């Protein structure tokens, strides 16, 4: 079984973002960038399936500026076998990426695609299902457990109110939720080894794909600010405030 995982370079999880003063977007210059946390979980799951002997090859794909290749190196340092890099200088959006991934899937013919459920920059949470639709493959979104059982993939999904398990025919697409696994840290020897693993570059032109965004960002601003309130001295005062001032109980 061959597994394809997608990774995206985003502003690090722990960085407090800054909105550009002209309202055109969020500042990404001189900001710490890392692999999207949900994609780390996807990478980890692919590696575990290979370690269990279920998968025979794991391939990571990314789109973006030159530095995005560092994210591929991280994936390979964790244990991914090889990588594909699609250079894109402009803004990357889900629909264009899904179209391009479809072409890559037709070429690579993976049996399973594992993607993060969302990227923590745009929070769109849609590339996986869009790609699954375009391929005509079943999807298991928000996965907290993935098992291969007699030629099918059983995906346990995080849904509102609990968990749900689906059985999907292969090939299939899975998107990861937080509890699927805890991604490993790459060891120094593996980081060194990853430098020798191959990254293939495929341009959008070679894929015959137009990556022009269909969603134009008109402006980006801060969320409505919330003023801090007061600290109260004791429980009695709190109850009084909630009853008589806020009138919520």
């Amino acid at each position, binding site marked *: 079984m061959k597994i394809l995982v997608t990774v995206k370079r985003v502003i690090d999880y722990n960085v407090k973002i800054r909105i550009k003063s002209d309202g055109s977007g969020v500042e990404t210059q001189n900001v710490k960038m890392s692999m999207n946390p949900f994609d780390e979980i996807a990478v980890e799951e692919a590696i575990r399936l290979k370690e269990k002997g279920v998968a025979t090859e794991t391939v990571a794909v990314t789109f973006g500026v030159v530095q995005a290749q560092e994210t591929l190196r991280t994936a390979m340092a964790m244990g991914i076998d090889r990588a594909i890099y699609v250079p894109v200088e402009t803004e990357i959006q889900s629909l264009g990426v899904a179209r391009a991934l479809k072409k890559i899937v037709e070429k690579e013919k993976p049996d399973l695609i594992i993607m993060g459920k969302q990227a923590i920059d745009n929070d769109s949470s849609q590339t996986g299902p869009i790609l699954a639709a375009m391929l005509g493959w079943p999807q298991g979104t928000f996965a907290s457990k993935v098992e291969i059982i007699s030629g099918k993939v059983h995906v346990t999904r995080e849904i509102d*109110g609990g968990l749900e398990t689906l059985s999907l025919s292969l090939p299939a697409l899975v998107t990861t939720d937080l509890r699927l696994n805890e991604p490993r840290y790459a060891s120094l020897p593996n980081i060194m080894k990853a430098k020798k693993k191959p990254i293939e570059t495929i341009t959008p032109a070679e894929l015959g794909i137009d990556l022009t965004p*269909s969603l134009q960002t008109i402006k980006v601003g801060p969320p409505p600010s919330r003023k801090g309130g007061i600290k109260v001295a004791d*429980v009695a005062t709190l109850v009084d405030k909630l009853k008589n001032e806020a009138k*919520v109980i």
Partner: protein
Amino acid sequence: MATLVLAEHDNLHVKPSTLHTITAAMKLGQQVTVLIAGQNCTSVATEAAALKGVDEVLLADDAAYSHFLAENMAALIAKLSPSYSHILAPATSFGKNILPRAAGLSDCAQISDVLGIESLDTFIRPIYAGNAIATVRSADKIKFITVRSTAFESTASTGGSGMVKKIESAGNIGISTFVGAELSKSERPELTAARIVVSGGRGVGSGENFKTIIEPLADKLGAAVGASRAAVDAGYVPNDYQVGQTGKVVAPDLYIAVGISGAIQHLAGMKGSKTIVAINKDADAPIFAVADYGIVGDLFTIVPELIKNL
């Protein structure tokens, strides 16, 4: 043109998230059609037809839709899509699973988690966990939109006079099957629909303490129970309790954060609450910067005292 709303329901009743989505649909100023796809769900269609703002209800009653499998649901929506300019669904685990797949079948992108509607093609949505708000214009031929429930009031359950029209099933695609579900059984209100939410964080210390400290306070107030990601990661409570960027977004009238420091990722999920109370022993915890009322102290003495005083 017209707007189609994909209704979330449990084959018995329309879920509250649908009522908020219909309000968003009404803001587009077009005819509002609600799609009820499920099994043995005629009563849901009748209920939907009475909702204020609903002009028409399409009912697809078939075994293929009994568990709302994305593959079958999206195929049905794609079949209907040429008649609509806008297709809306709630931004819940239901809508977020089905709608982007339907968008993909129509070669369109989705506009996710919409907070505001500026015009027929311009929408307001959160990015970076709500730490920035983007205004976006869509050039797609059909606008597929998931709606954040907390940003729109719910429509009235009466006042509508929609006609129910039965439609044909798009069939079972046959590439996925439902195996089973484990739903948390709870007498408490649903987290995203509750008027009051009591959430616990890492400071609560254990799953046992959640039962003896957080739950009694919630039950005294008739509240739902939530948690920070730290509490979920520590295994105190299941993941579906999680409030935050990677969990649920809530905006109740009253949100009580107990032993929660207030990481950016948690604040993203509850900042929209009307009144926020924070109970934390660390006076410098970031949660106090968003709380209307804060108490600095030991939650193990404050919460029981609060329960007694309510």
